[in-house]
């Protein structure tokens, strides 16, 4: 079976190399048979990699510890779910997952485009196969998950207990769906440049792919943050660690891209900018892969110094050279057909939105790679901490938030003053009311004041947009308000899906601001039946409990919790001691409400004196981060749901393009 798996990987490499060659030659010579062969080969690669991945899963499930990779990440005692998840627990397996996802996406692209985009497809398949070839070379020559140990240990090492949670099982695949998903719009962009078909067909064709990749990168970020929050026991969810930044950067540029393509679709402007953004997004997603594996940048997460760093760097260099060359070659065809007329127009608000997002991305990039740069230039490593990221990004994020509220209210091209007065009245009044309320509540710190006021403004705008649209529809059709609202959204899914996403983003920012500026924490020691006050909560240490099974010993403290004198439940923070890992694990317990989380950690328990030491964090509004992501998730689905209007626009663009190229 391991040998069979290795053979599959070699076979996949050969077929995908052929797919690259056949598609590239087919595109140049316009040979239908070569193009078809390239497409069929790319389907075959998916099948072969599917078999290889099943083989690896089978090896995990059957405890084949003579395979080094299985022995390193699985053990007999692990539940089957985690044996399956151990597939991507290590470097080699996660590479295999990466390339499996990529080839599956390629196959879907091929199947979707059997009868459309024929002028682009050979180039698309060639680009995607090129990427596949590279990752298969990495798998075959540097990190093969089917490598044998040469002996059979009695049991495997097992997956680290902190990673044995369902969240950790789905977090990496989500990130990969995002990282890899970016390849599809990138491949279409390259195909557009190479074929000269640089109209908006490639953009409209890949719109849903881009949204999909963007959503999963985001969900990956969310799950990582949420896991850190409930599992690691430091009360936070984001630390500006290089690994987190690596996933954030392509997400930011993809966000910029999603916005700026609208300008190209509507106004045929910013073509070079859009190309640059998608190239940048793809490069950053490869860079992210590079960052998490190379060991170049140290992080709290430990990396394998697997030696793939240099290889990935070379690939990165090749991608940049190739993309920039093709882009420069086609510059004459990327002339803008419109003009940015007015300062107060939707176009310019999109422009500023893009500058801000790229600015945030640049800040994150600069702070992340600075240690490497300073070591190369000055011979000494200098790092910058979270304060840098926070001070620079906070004003940028606030400007972005303000734009989110302003943009839907101002018209395309040029907005008139009286129109502006009318539409700004309600959202601005709401914002001022919230501002006043915050002052009354005693908040004097400028940053959160501004942030919450802007959040209120944007929410007001969004509510007003939904309301105004539904009322207009109600007046013309005589439908009930709710029906009008439903139909309004149904008929303009992209627009109102987008607004819903913005509402989600506002919720997330509310949560971030609340939990960053108003967090309280304290360490305290209690004997049994003693109490301590934490904000509005009274915490009483009641009892301890311990249990034990074959994998771990568990010790927990039981604390009664009351708020404003009323009982609200129990918290049971504890410590697990995993026998096979010889490592304790703090198990936090959280009392969650919409207004705040009481997050409790057991630090120490001295059995002799009966003194237990705890730490609590009061994190206001933190749950709005997770709620915001759910809203964002729903909104994105609204926006990607097939829409007859979008389809008609795409068909029209295709027709125009076919006529140009006939």
């Amino acid at each position, binding site marked *: 079976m391991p040998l069979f798996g290795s053979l599959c990987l070699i076979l996949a490499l050969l077929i995908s190399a052929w797919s690259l060659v056949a598609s590239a030659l087919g595109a140049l010579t316009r040979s239908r048979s070569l193009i078809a062969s390239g497409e069929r080969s790319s389907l075959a690669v998916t099948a072969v990699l599917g078999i290889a991945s099943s083989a690896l899963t089978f090896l995990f499930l059957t405890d084949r510890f003579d395979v*080094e990779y299985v*022995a*390193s990440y699985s053990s007999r005692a692990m539940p089957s779910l985690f044996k399956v998840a151990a597939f*991507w*627990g*290590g*470097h080699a397996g*996660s590479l295999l997952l990466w390339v499996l996802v990529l080839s599956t996406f390629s196959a879907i692209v091929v199947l979707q485009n059997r009868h459309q985009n024929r002028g682009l497809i050979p180039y698309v398949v060639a680009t995607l196969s090129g990427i596949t070839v590279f990752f298969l070379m990495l798998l075959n020559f540097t990190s093969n998950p089917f490598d044998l140990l040469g*002996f059979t*240990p009695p049991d495997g*090492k097992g997956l*680290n207990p*902190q*990673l044995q949670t369902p969240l950790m099982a789905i977090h*990496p695949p989500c990130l990969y769906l995002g990282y890899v998903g970016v390849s599809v719009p990138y491949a279409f962009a390259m195909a557009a440049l190479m074929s000269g078909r640089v109209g908006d067909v490639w953009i409209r064709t890949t719109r849903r792919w881009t949204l999909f990749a963007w959503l999963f990168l985001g969900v990956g970020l969310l799950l990582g943050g949420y896991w850190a929050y409930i599992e690691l026991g430091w009360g936070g969810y984001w630390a500006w660690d290089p*690994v987190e930044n690596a996933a954030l950067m392509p997400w930011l540029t993809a966000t910029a891209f999603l916005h700026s393509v609208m300008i190209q679709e509507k106004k045929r402007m910013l073509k*070079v*900018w859009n190309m640059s953004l998608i190239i940048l997004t793809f490069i950053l997603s490869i860079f992210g892969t590079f960052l998490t594996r190379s060991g170049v940048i*140290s992080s*709290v*997460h*430990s*990396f*394998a110094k*697997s030696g793939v760093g240099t290889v990935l760097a070379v690939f990165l260099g090749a991608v940049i050279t190739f993309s920039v060359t093709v882009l420069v070659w086609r*510059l004459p065809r990327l*002339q*803008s057909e419109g*003009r*940015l007329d*007015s*300062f107060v127009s939707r176009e310019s608000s999109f*422009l*500023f939105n893009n*500058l801000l997002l790229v*600015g945030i991305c640049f*800040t994150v990039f600069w702070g992340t790679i600075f*240690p490497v740069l300073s070591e190369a230039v000055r011979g*000494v*490593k*200098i*790092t*910058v*901490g979270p*304060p*840098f990221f926070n*001070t*620079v990004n906070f004003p940028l994020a606030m400007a972005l938030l303000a734009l989110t509220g302003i943009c839907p209210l101002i018209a395309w091209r040029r907005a008139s003053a009286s129109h502006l007065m009318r539409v700004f009245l309600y959202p601005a009044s709401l914002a001022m009311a919230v501002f006043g309320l915050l002052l009354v509540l005693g908040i004097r710190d400028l940053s959160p004041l501004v942030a919450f006021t802007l959040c209120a403004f944007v929410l007001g705008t969004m509510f007003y947009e939904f309301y105004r649209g539904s009322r207009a529809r109600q007046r013309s059709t005589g439908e009930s308000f709710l029906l009008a609202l439903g139909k309004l959204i149904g008929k303009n899914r992209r627009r109102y899906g987008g607004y819903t996403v913005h509402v989600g983003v506002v919720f997330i920012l509310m949560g971030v601001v609340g939990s960053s500026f108003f967090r309280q924490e304290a360490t305290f*020691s209690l004997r049994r039946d003693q109490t301590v006050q934490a904000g509005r909560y009274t915490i009483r240490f009641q009892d301890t409990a311990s249990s034990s099974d074959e994998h771990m010993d568990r010790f927990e403290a039981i604390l009664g919790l009351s708020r404003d004198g009323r009982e609200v439940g129990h918290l049971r923070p504890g410590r697990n001691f995993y026998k096979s890992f*010889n*490592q304790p*694990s*703090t198990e936090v317990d959280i009392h969650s409400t919409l207004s705040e989380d009481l997050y409790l*950690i057991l*630090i*120490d328990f*001295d059995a002799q*004196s009966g*003194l237990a030491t705890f*730490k609590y964090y009061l994190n206001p509004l933190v749950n709005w981060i997770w709620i915001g992501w759910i809203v964002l998730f729903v909104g994105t689905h609204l926006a990607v749901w097939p829409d007859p209007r979008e389809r008609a626009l795409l068909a029209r663009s295709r027709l125009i393009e076919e006529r140009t190229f006939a």
Partner: protein
Amino acid sequence: MTGGRLSRISPKIAISVAILLAAFATLVSLSFRGSMVYYLSVSEFLKHPPSNLDDHFRVNGKVVPGSISKQSGVLGADFDMTDGQGIVKVAFRKELPDTFVDDAEVVVEGRMKEGVFEAHTLLAKCPSKYESQQKASYSASP
């Protein structure tokens, strides 16, 4: 490359973009200077502690096995940290992460005081997916 595009953007917008960029650059450089910290290994730190960035450092190394000493009733621990060449004594007085064990890779931030490095933050490398030390231990076994 941008010439063609810029000519299609009104001067008003071009100027405000320029102002924004300037403000951004100022913001970056100002906050950057404020948060720079030297990141050194134990022996680099001992050999040549550069001092133009405050006397505040970030030092990485490994926990010397057996050196961790904890007092009951006091948070944190005292331990020795090494990179194989030099050793520095570290005192940390906050709650310790689970990953802080003998031989763990740690990064501490703080300053030297009377021969002891007083750390105000301590990171111990958390168990990530890409762990490969296990590989080494397998290859070493018969």
